[in-house]
C-alpha cells in the first residue's frame, strides 16, 4: 500500500512522468552484427583444428584404405619406398626421433644452465644484453639455420671426424643446429618459471646457510619444475615438427639407421621434399604425405596437451 502510493505522482504535480525507456530491450543492430563477427572469429580457431583433423584424416583414410597399404606394415615396416609400394614409417620415425634426441641433448642442459645463470646469477645489465641476443637467435628463420647446418656444422664435423665417417648429409649436424634453435625456447620458458619463484624461498634458504648453487638447484629449480618440464616437452614437440633444418641438412631419402653420422630423412623432411617436387594429386604418394602428417600432428598435439596439463596442474602457486 505504502509503496504503491509512493510511486504515484502526487496529484496536481507540474512534473510530467518521463517517457518510459527500456534500455535492456533496445536492440542495436550494428552491435549485434559486430558481436556476431567477434563470436565467429573466436570460433574460427575451432574450425581450423577441425579442418586439420578433417583434411589430414580424409586423405590419410584414402591412403590406408588403398589395397596396397596395410596398417600393420605402416607402423612396423622398415622400408619406405613409394615407388615399390613399401610404406613402413619406421625409417622416417627413427630419424625424427634421432634428430630430436640430439637436439634435446644440446638444448636441455645448455638451456637449463643459461636459464639458471640468467635468473639467479646474472646482474641486470648482463641479463639485459644476453636475453635480447637469445631472442634474436629464436627469431632467426629455420631455413637460415638449415643453411648454417649444411655449410658450417657439417664441414666442421667432417674436418674433425673425417670425410669417410661423416656423410655430407647427416642427422648429427641437423640435430645439433636444431638444438641451437630450441635452446632459446627452453631457456626463456625456464627462466620465466624460475623468475616466478618468490624471493622469500631463496632468502629462507640463504638464511639456513645454503650456498648460491644449493639455493638455485635445490630450492628454486624444484619449485619451478612444472614450468621447466612444460618447456622441455614443448621443446621436444618443436623439434619433432621442425622441417627446414632437417630437409636441408639431414639428407634426402629414408634410411633405417641409428648411426647419427649417416643421412636419413625425417617425417617433416620427407613431406618437404616430396611436396616440393612435381606431385600428382590423389596419387598414393600424395596421400601418404597426409598419413605422415597425421602421425606428426597427433604426436605434437599430444605433447602440447601434456605440456599444458603440467603447467596447469602442477604449478605451485605462491602468494
Amino acid at each position, binding site marked *: 500500500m505504502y509503496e504503491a502510493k509512493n510511486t504515484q505522482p502526487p496529484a496536481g504535480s507540474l512534473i510530467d512522468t518521463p517517457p518510459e525507456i527500456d534500455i535492456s530491450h533496445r536492440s542495436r543492430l550494428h552491435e549485434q552484427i559486430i558481436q556476431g563477427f*567477434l563470436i565467429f*572469429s573466436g570460433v574460427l580457431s575451432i574450425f581450423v583444428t577441425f579442418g586439420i583433423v578433417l583434411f589430414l584424416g580424409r586423405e590419410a583414410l584414402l591412403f590406408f584404405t588403398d589395397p596396397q597399404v596395410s596398417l600393420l606394415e605402416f607402423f612396423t615396416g622398415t622400408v619406405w619406398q613409394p615407388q615399390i609400394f613399401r610404406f613402413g614409417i619406421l625409417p622416417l620415425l627413427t630419424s625424427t626421433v634421432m634428430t630430436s634426441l640430439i637436439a634435446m641433448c644440446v638444448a636441455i642442459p645448455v638451456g637449463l644452465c643459461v636459464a639458471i645463470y640468467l635468473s639467479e646469477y646474472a646482474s641486470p645489465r648482463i641479463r639485459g644484453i644476453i636475453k635480447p641476443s637469445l631472442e634474436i637467435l629464436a627469431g632467426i628463420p629455420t631455413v637460415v639455420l638449415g*643453411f648454417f647446418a649444411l655449410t658450417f656444422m657439417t664441414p666442421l664435423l667432417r674436418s674433425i671426424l673425417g670425410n669417410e665417417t661423416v656423410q655430407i648429409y647427416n642427422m648429427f649436424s641437423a640435430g645439433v643446429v636444431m638444438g641451437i634453435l630450441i635452446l632459446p625456447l627452453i631457456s626463456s620458458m625456464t627462466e620465466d618459471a624460475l623468475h616466478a619463484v618468490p624471493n622469500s624461498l631463496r632468502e629462507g634458504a640463504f638464511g639456513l646457510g645454503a650456498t648460491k648453487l644449493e639455493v638455485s638447484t635445490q630450492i628454486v629449480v624444484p619449485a619451478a619444475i612444472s614450468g621447466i618440464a612444460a618447456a622441455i616437452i614443448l621443446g621436444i614437440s618443436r623439434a619433432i615438427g621442425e622441417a627446414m633444418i632437417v630437409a636441408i641438412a639431414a639428407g634426402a631419402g629414408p634410411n633405417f639407421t641409428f648411426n647419427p653420422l649417416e643421412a636419413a630423412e625425417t617425417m617433416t623432411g620427407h613431406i618437404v621434399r616430396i611436396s616440393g617436387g612435381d606431385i600428382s594429386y590423389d596419387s598414393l604418394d600424395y596421400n601418404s604425405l597426409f598419413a605422415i602428417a597425421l602421425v606428426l600432428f597427433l604426436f605434437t598435439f599430444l605433447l602440447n596437451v601434456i605440456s599444458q596439463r603440467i603447467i596447469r596442474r602442477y604449478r605451485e602457486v605462491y602468494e
Partner: protein
Amino acid sequence: MTNSPSNPRNFSSPNDDDLTRKDSLFKDNLAQRHRRGIVWKVIFQISTVIGIIALSTLLIKILNDTMGYAAIEYKKDPSTISSSGLPLDEMTCSELRVILAENVTKNRLRTIEREKPMVERSQSECLDLVISEVAEPTVKKTWPLFASLFNYEEIQSIAAEEYPGGDLIFKVWLSRAFILSPQSDDPLKAGIRTAILGSIYIIIIVIIFAFPIGVAAAVYLEEYASQSRINQIIQTNINNLAGVPSIIYGMLGLALFVRYLEPLTSGAIFGSADPTTANGRTILSAGLTLALLILPVVIINGQESIRAVPNSLRQASYGMGATKWQTVWSHVLPNALPGILTGTILAVSRAFGETAPLVVVGAATFITFDPEGIFSKFTSVPIQIYQWTARPQDAFRNIAAAAIIVLLVLLLLLNAAAVFLRNRYSRRW
C-alpha cells in the same frame, strides 16, 4: 695457560675428539660446497657464452659467404672479343654495341633493347652487357671472405692451376644488382627481386586476414566470452594450435586452399584466372595458409594486451552509459593497440621467415617475372634461400648467403618497428 679461555673447545664437552672431528668435517665440507658453487657458476656462464657464440658464429659464417674471390671461366675470352685489338674497357659504348650486335642473336638483342635502350646505357653498363652476353662467364669456384683476405696467394695459385683460362675476381654477391634483378639460372645474374615482391604480397594477405580476425577473437575471448565450457574449449584450442608444427598448416593449406577452394584461390570464379597459374598454388593460397599459421599467436598476444587495460577504464565508460561495443571500441582497443600491433608485427615476422608451409602449398621453383596479383604463382625470400642452398655449386651458396642477409635485414626492420611501437606508445597503469 694450557687451559686457555681463548680456546672454548676445551671447556665445552667431555668428548672433545668427536667435536673437533665434526667441526673439521663441517669446515672441509664448506670449502667443498663453495668450490662446487664456483665450478657450477663457471659452467652456467660457459653455457650462456655458448648460446652467444652460436649466434655470432651463424652471423659471421653468413657474412663470410656474401663476398670473396671467385674463379670465373669465359666461354669466349674477353681479350679476343674485340676485332680491333683495343681492350674492351677502353672502347666507347657505340663500339661495344657493334660487338654485341655481331655476337648475339637478333631476338636477344631486341630483348636487351626492350629492357633498356642501348643508347641510354652508360659505358660501364655496356661493358657489363658485352661481358655477360658475349663472353658468357661461369663461376667455377668461390672462396669466402676471410680466406680471400688472408690467403690471397694460395687462392691465386689454385685458381691459376685449376682454371688457367679463367679470371680471379673479387665478387660482392650482395649487391644492388642482386636485390633488383629477377631470378636466373646463372648465379652471376640471379637476383631476389621476384622473391622480395612475392614475400611482400604474401605478407599483405596475411595481415589483411590475420589481423582483424585475430583481434576480434581476442576481444571476444577477453571482453564478451563468459566462463562457459565452450569458451574454455576455444581458449585451450587456441593454445594448442599455437604449438602445431608449421608444416601441418602447409598440409592444411594444400588440401583446403589449393585443392578444395581452387576456384576461389586460382581466381577462376572472378574470371581473372591467370593462364600461367592453372591451379590453386597462388599468392592468395600462400597468404591464407600463413594467416592461419599466425592466427593463434596474434590472438594470444592480443588477449594479453587487452587484459592489461585496467578495469577502471571500462567501468568509467559503462558509468557514462556507453554500451559494451562502445566501451571496447573507444576505450579498450585504443589502449591495447600498441601491444596488439607489437604482437602482430612479431607474428608477421615469423610468417615472413616461414619456408616449410610454403614449399608444401606449392611455391614455384622458378619464376623470373614479377607477381602480377594475388592469383599469380609465388616464390618468397626463404623459398629462394632453400632452393639455392639445395644446389651443389659453390656460387649458389654465396647467393643464398646474400639472400639470407636480405631476409635478416627485413626481419630486423620489422622487429625494430615492433620495439619502437612498444617503447613509443606503451603505457604502464
